Each structure stands twice: as C-alpha cells, then as structure tokens.
C-alpha cells in the first residue's frame, strides 16, 4: 500500500524552492484572470502570485482578525520573509500578510455551535421521575409494619434530615465535578461518611425525645442512608445502579401490599426494605473508590459552605412544605389526610417533568441569546419562555394527579371524595412554586427561594388551625412571589450563556 506520492509535499504545504511552486500547489486556476482582477481598493491589478495565495488561504484571509493572524499562518505553513521577498515582491511576510488582509473582504465562516450543556439529557428526566416516584411504594408497606409512639415524628424528621443532607452533598458533588470526576468522588465519599454519622446522631436524639422503638428508628436511618447513597449515584450519573438499589425495597413492598399484608410475611418485607439502603450505600462506596494518587486539593473551603448551607436549608424547607399537609392532617391537628396521601406519588413523578422542563427552558433561553442582539427584547422573550415552561409543568402535574385519583378510586386504596380537591389544588400550587424555585436555583440564585419558602412554611405552621385554606393562601402567595422574582431575575442575559 504505497499509494502515496512521497516526492511531493503534503497538500497544504508550499515548498520554498523554485518560484511559482505555490501556484502549482494550489492545483486550481485563480478565480479571475490577471487582466480583470482589480483589488477592491483600486490598488491595481493583483500580482498573480499574491492572488493565488489569497485563493489558497481564502478561509484564513476571510476570517482573520488582523493581518498578523495571516502572517502567523503563512509562517506556520513554511512561508518566510525570503519567499515573501523573492516571490511576492514584499519586504517581508508581514507586509505580504497585510496586503492579503486588505485584499480579501472580511467574511468569516460561522463556527460550529458550542455544545449545548443542556442537550443530551432527553431520557434522563424520565428515569429520574421513576426514581423519585418509586420509593413512595415503600411507605405504605412500612406503615403496616410500624406501630407505636413517635412513628410520624420519626418519619418526618427522617424526611427533613435526608432532604437537607442529600441536597448539600449533591451541591458539593456537582461543584467538584467541574474540576474532575476524581475530585467529586473524593468529596462524595468523605461527605457520605460524615453525613451518615450525622444521621445516626439525629436518629438517636429523636429516639430519646419521641421514645420511638428501634425498628422505626432503623427505618428512618435507612431512609436517610438510601437518600445519601442515591445522591452520590445521581451526581456520578449512575442512575441505573440507583434503580437496582431500589428494586428489592420497591418490589418487596409491592408484593407485600398486593398480597394484602399477610402476617407471616413481615420478615420478608423488612428484609426487602433493608436491602435498598444497604445496596445504595454499597454502590455509592464502590463508585467513589479512587486511586491512591490523591488530588491534594483542599476538600472544603469557606466558599463551599457559603453555597452549601442555603442548599441544605432549601432541602429542609422544601421537605417541610411537602410533608406539612401529611403531618398536619386535614384540620391542622394530625389524623389522616387522604388528599395529601393521594398527591405524594404524582407530585414525586412530576419532579421528573419539572427537570425535563427546566432543561427545555434552558435550551430555549440559550437559543434566544444566540439570536438576539438587544437586551430588552431578549428579556421579554426569556420571560415568555419561562411562563410557557411553567404552564407545561402545571398541565403535566395536573394530569398526573387526575390519573392518580382515577387509579386510587378504581382500586379503592383511599376513601376519596370531592373534599380532597382543595388539598390537591394546594399541592399543585406548591408543585408549581417548587418548579420555579428549582429553576431559579439552577441559575445560582439561592437566597430568595430559601427565604420565601421558609416564610411560607412558618406561615402554614402558625395558621394551621385554618386547615387547607392556609395552604391555599400560603402556596398561592409563594407561587406569585417566586414567579415575579423569576420573571425579573431570569431576564438577564448573563445568566444564560
């Protein structure tokens, strides 16, 4: 296979021997003949060899930012001062490049589009929706196994703890991912160990205060452990392992529930529920194993805490808002709240929709930035895009709620009446507010979402005697506040590059 002609230089190279070789190298005739070729600036007929050179380096001449860029390319291609003098009649390569620069009009090619960071996630949000929704199956199974003082208190504390800790761990993981996977793995591994200790302390404390039995505390600890392990896997992009970890708990619970919670199967159900957090932790530990070469950078700095604390705070408050209707019951003083129980699964699933919607919104805003050249017009179009994303979310979430209601009604799992509607509407409002809160936090704006959600939760707790009405008012106000803030803040071009 010696098909290559070794005696001639590679195609893009002018030799430096023998005048006129460059012309021959181009292998093509000049576009215009010498007689009619006039420089655009009236400099007279183009010397034929410079013309050929302009042809040969047309791309470079058209897109050069100044003559020196052309000079650098000519030199790089092996054309030096000597050739510029001898062949093109210019004192040096710089003068030749300048001549070429002013002969060829600026007409740059468009570069390939920068990779869109929000592209390539098309199916991941659907998987996430599943991962958010599936754990809900475990709770009714677990509820059947647990009785005694402090069940609700332990579950609520476990929920709050796991959300806030997982949010802050995810924050550390994602920020480190920017400087390399190994950095992220290191911080996740150490963070996981530290936060598991925090979980044990919290569970021991709640056990003391609420006199909860060991089994319930173990379930709470398991819930937290699963959330932390799952968070590590999600940051590292190992969603399928998350699914594998969830499988025993979810399938076991489903089987247990489907069989009507038979008395002899409790040990089986417990084992299935225990397998999920243990698997999640095992996977998380396995996926954060790194080589002996330590990256040597400081693990956590003050700037990290500055970012992680609001994130953890938001996790806590969001968990509080979502669990408040279940904890408060229908009239603010405990008891079963069928509307709230109905909403948990569809709302979890809708977070997958929210994620997909957020990515679509970010792609849209980037496109707008690329096609606008005026800030005011961009801001208006970006607001419109946000509005339409929010509407899409509400419609999808409402559809999921209706679907859930139909299934629940058909199976008779919960006693449903029209009385649950206000509660469902309150949840829908809260879900929309959470979508907007997630969106603005995705742009690094954390303070407003945290403050407004915290105030809303405080209001709900203070006014819990009014039942669902409080939630409707509080969530409605939260939605309006976040919506107005987002419309103002996310109209800024700098956020969308």
């Amino acid at each position: 296979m010696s098909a290559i002609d070794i005696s001639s230089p590679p195609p893009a190279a002018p030799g430096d021997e023998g005048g006129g070789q460059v012309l021959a190298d181009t292998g093509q005739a000049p576009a215009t003949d010498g007689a009619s070729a006039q420089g655009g600036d009236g400099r007279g007929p183009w010397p034929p060899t410079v013309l050929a050179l302009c042809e040969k380096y047309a791309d470079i001449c058209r897109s050069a930012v100044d003559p020196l860029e052309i000079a650098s390319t000519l030199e790089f291609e092996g054309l030096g001062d000597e050739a510029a003098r001898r062949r093109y009649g210019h004192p040096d390569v710089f003068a030749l490049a300048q001549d070429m620069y002013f002969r060829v009009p600026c007409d740059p090619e468009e570069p390939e589009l920068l990779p869109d960071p929000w592209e390539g996630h098309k199916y991941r949000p659907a998987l996430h929706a599943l991962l958010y929704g599936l754990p809900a199956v475990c709770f009714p199974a677990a509820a059947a196994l647990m009785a005694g003082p402090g069940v609700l208190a332990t579950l609520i504390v476990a929920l709050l703890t796991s959300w806030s800790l997982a949010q802050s761990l995810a924050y550390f993981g994602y920020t480190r991912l920017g400087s390399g996977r190994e950095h992220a793995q290191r911080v996740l591994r150490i963070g996981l160990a530290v936060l598991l200790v925090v979980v044990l302390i919290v569970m021991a404390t709640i056990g003391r205060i609420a006199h909860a039995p060991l089994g319930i505390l173990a379930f709470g600890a398991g819930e937290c452990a699963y959330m932390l392990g799952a968070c590590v896997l999600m940051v590292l992009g190992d969603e399928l392992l998350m699914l594998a970890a969830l499988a025993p708990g979810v399938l076991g619970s489903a089987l247990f529930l489907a069989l009507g919670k038979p008395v002899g199967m409790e040990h089986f159900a417990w084992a299935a529920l225990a397998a999920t957090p243990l698997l999640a932790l095992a996977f998380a530990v396995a996926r954060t194993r790194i080589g002996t070469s330590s990256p040597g950078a400081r693990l956590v700095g003050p700037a990290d805490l500055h970012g992680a604390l609001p994130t953890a705070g938001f996790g806590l408050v969001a968990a509080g808002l979502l669990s408040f209707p279940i904890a408060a019951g229908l009239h603010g003083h405990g008891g079963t709240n069928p509307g709230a129980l109905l909403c948990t699964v569809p709302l979890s699933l809708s977070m997958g929709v929210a994620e997909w919607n957020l990515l679509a919104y970010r792609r849209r805003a980037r496109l707008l930035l690329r096609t606008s050249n005026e800030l005011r017009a961009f801001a208006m179009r970006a607001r419109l895009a946000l509005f339409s994303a929010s509407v899409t979310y509400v419609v999808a979430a409402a559809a999921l709620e209706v679907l859930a209601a139909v299934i629940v009604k058909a199976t008779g799992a919960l006693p449903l009446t029209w009385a649950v509607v206000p509660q469902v509407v309150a949840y829908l409002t809260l879900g929309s507010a959470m979508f907007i809160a997630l969106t603005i936090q995705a742009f690094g704006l954390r303070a407003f979402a945290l403050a407004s959600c915290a105030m809303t939760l405080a209001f709900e707790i203070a006014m819990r005697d009014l039942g669902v009405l409080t939630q409707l008012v509080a969530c409605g106000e939260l939605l309006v506040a976040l919506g107005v803030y987002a419309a103002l803040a996310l109209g800024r071009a700098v956020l969308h590059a």
Partner: protein
Amino acid sequence: MDVALSAEGAWPHQFGGVSVWCDQLIRGMPDHVFQMVALVATGHEPIRWTLPGNVSSVIAIPTWGPAEALPSRRRRRRSQPPLAELFEVLLAPPRVAQDRFTALLRELFSYAQEQNLPAVLGSEDAVRLLSDLWRGWPPDSSKAAPTLQDAVLALQLIEHALRPLSFPPVQAEVVHAVTNGLGALPALAAKWRYGTPMILTEHGLYMREQYLFSRRLPYRWPVRALYMRLLRRICAVGYAESELITPGNVSHKRWEKQLGADLARVRTVYNGVAPADFPAVEEQPSVPTVSWAGRIDPIKDIETLLRAFALVLRELPDARLRIFGSPPHGQEAYLVRCKDLAEDLDINESVAFEGRVEEIRDAYAAGHVVALCSITEGFPYTVIEAMTCGRPCIATDVGGVAEAIADTGIVVPPRNPRAFAEGCLTLLRDDEERRRLGAAARERALEFFTVDRAISAFDEIYMLIGSGRPLVTADAESLGEQEPSVDLGEEDTSLLATRPSA
C-alpha cells in the same frame, strides 16, 4: 537579591521548554531568592517539579476556576471601572490609542485591587455596554454581526484574562515575566504597585502562538477578534513596560517589532545546556542513521520527516531512522498516524519508534545526524544539545534554529521533504564533512549555548536592573546577531483603513 518570576502554564506545574529553562535559571543562581507567580487553570494542579532551596514561595493564580477562588472584595461598588473606554479602545484597530490602553489597564488594576472587577465584568450592565458599543462591528461585514451571546462570551473571556489583576502583587527587587501575554500581568501588577523593575523573556512568541491557537477556538468572529485584540494590546503593554526584553532568539525580534516593542531594549539571551551532561560522542553507528528526539506532536511535523526519509532510502537502502520520544497526553493519535504513514510509505522496516529514552544524549549518539523537522520552534534544546554532543543537525528554518546551527549543519525550509532528504543525504554520505561539521557544532555550542552563559547573562541583568543603573543598550553580548530585515516602512496607518466589503 529577591527575584519574582511570572509565567503562564509553566514551571513548577507543567513540563516543557520554558519550565526546563526556569529550573535551570533558578538552580543556576543559588545566591538569589526566587518567588514564582504561576498562572494555572483551576488551582488544583499539583506541583510537578522539585522546588530548589532558593525558591521562597510559589504563588498559583487560577484563571479558570470558580470566581469564588479570587481574593474576596467588598461587595458595595463605590465607583465604576472605565469599561466603556476599554471596549472602545478594543474595538479600534490594533495600535491605535495604545497609550490609552496602557492607562486603562492600569486603572483596571487599581480597581481590581480594591473592588470586585470580575463581578463588574460579569454584570448585565457590562453586557449592555458592550452590545451597544459594538453594534455595527465589524464595519465591513454584515455577516459577523455580534449577538448577545457573543457579548456574554467575550466578557467572560475578558474576565478570565484579567483575573491576575485581582491578586495581591508580588514583592521583589526585580520581576521577570518569562512569558508575555497573560503571564506578564502579575509582573505588570508588581511594577505598577511597587515600581519593581520588570524584564520580559520570550521563548515561544506568545502572540504568534495565540493567533495560531485562536483558529481552533469555537467562538464567532466578534468574540475572537475582541479577545485577540485584548491579548495583542496586553503583549504591547508587556513590551512597553519592561526595562529589558530578552527573547530566546534573534528571529523573535521581527514579531516583537510588529507588536510594538522598542528594539533598543531588546537583548537576545540564548538558552544553554550544561556541557557536562552532553559530552562529545566519538563513536558512530554501524549503518547510516538519522536520529530524532522530542515530543511526538504535530508541530514537530514527523510526517515530513518520514516522507523525507523515504526519499533517503531510495539512495541509501540500508539507512535507518530512529525516533525517540513519546506523545504528550492527548496526542496519542498522532503517533498512530505517523506509524500508519511509515507503513503506507513502505519504510517501516527502516524506521524505529523507540519511545521514551532514559538519557536523552543516547538518542543523539544513536544517529550520524540529528534531525529536527518542526514547523514552529523557539530556540530548541534538541538542537543545542545535539550540537554539544558533536552531532551535526539537519533542521527546518523555524524560530531560532538557523541562529543556533549557523554553518555547522544544514537548515532547510519547513514542510519540504525533498530539501530535507537532500540535507540528510549530504550529511550521511560525506564522512569527512560530517565529522568536521560535528566538531564545529560542538565548538559553537560550547562557546555560545552553555547554561553558564545564559545564567551569567541574567545574573548581570538582574544586578544592573535591580541597582537601578542605566542599562547598556549595546547588543554586543549576543552572538552573530544580524538585524533581520524587518522594515515596516510607513508606520501602519493603513491599518485604519477598512477592508473591501463582502
């Protein structure tokens, strides 16, 4: 004496020619105390060189990490930096109002020392300012009209470029920038804050490399043009503010003059090698052998070397080509390409890719002649090391190669296999002439290109500049320096003209 070095992407975090040079310089002057200000990407880079005892500190300045890594500043803004003027100057043709740019850069430095310049550059107001000012730019093309995304990206690039101005300036008696461009900003900061005299060394020509590199950037024309103009103007400030400019070879002067350097302050100081590490090699290989050593990298143009060697084989069928070295991380594909080419040329029986070699001098000893086929170089160590060993070189006429070799080897145009092959054949065929050239090469290297000579030159420069005495402008020290034929003639008013419209 306290000396601060500043550089981008070099010692002690990276390998390469500039790093070797820094290491030699510091170790060669144990009586001076050095601080190193190193521009790095994220700040997570490990130190890869052993620090000599006379290095008092290494200050790493991350230019690409998160903005939180910058020194914290009061959030309240008491005044605005002169952004509008900065953009106006950058949008003007190169060289116009360069003094104004110097003053602006200095103002931005003062601002960045007290307040949060990155935040201002990342603000919506800055986007508004730039997108208003550059409407209708470039003046001669409607196709490249800037968008809002271009404005945001351009501001991000400017913000990263100017980050070194936000860090506390280094304190020393002399500050020595060993690269121009962004690597010179810490030196400028020291000069402006403390009046520290500054010198500037260039091994590779920064701006020339940036022009070549910029063609691969994924930005639209307005972004690339604005950024390149910023870099070009920063380089011009680097030249203008230096007491002395010390390029690693004479040929750099051509570019330095183009970029506005005052040639009266340019004094070439060549790289050098330690003669003890490269003793004369007497033995010759048994078959006619061409040896090559270096990084397997596209700029070394090994493909032309292979094509040339295929021509050599036609005349000398038992000749051998031995290639010593390995590809840097990320360039492994190039090695594969070269091996494929050798196969396609049907010369792989006679070409050996030897990989890394423990002692580089063994690579030079392995050939009758040492080849360098690069398309760009500064003042390559390969050539002067081979010369010190007494091996004649066949090399391409790039950077300072011709200055190094002069008449002790053969210099041919780059990317020209035929000329390169003829050079190889000349040296391989004529034993007597080759030995004569080898001896002359060693003599020349020992006279001009020893590390002692380079170090004593800088020792003298540090002493002179540190003491504040006037500099000798005579250029007698550097050898055989002939004024390269750089003559721009008319001062480029033509740059003010616009190009014909598309």
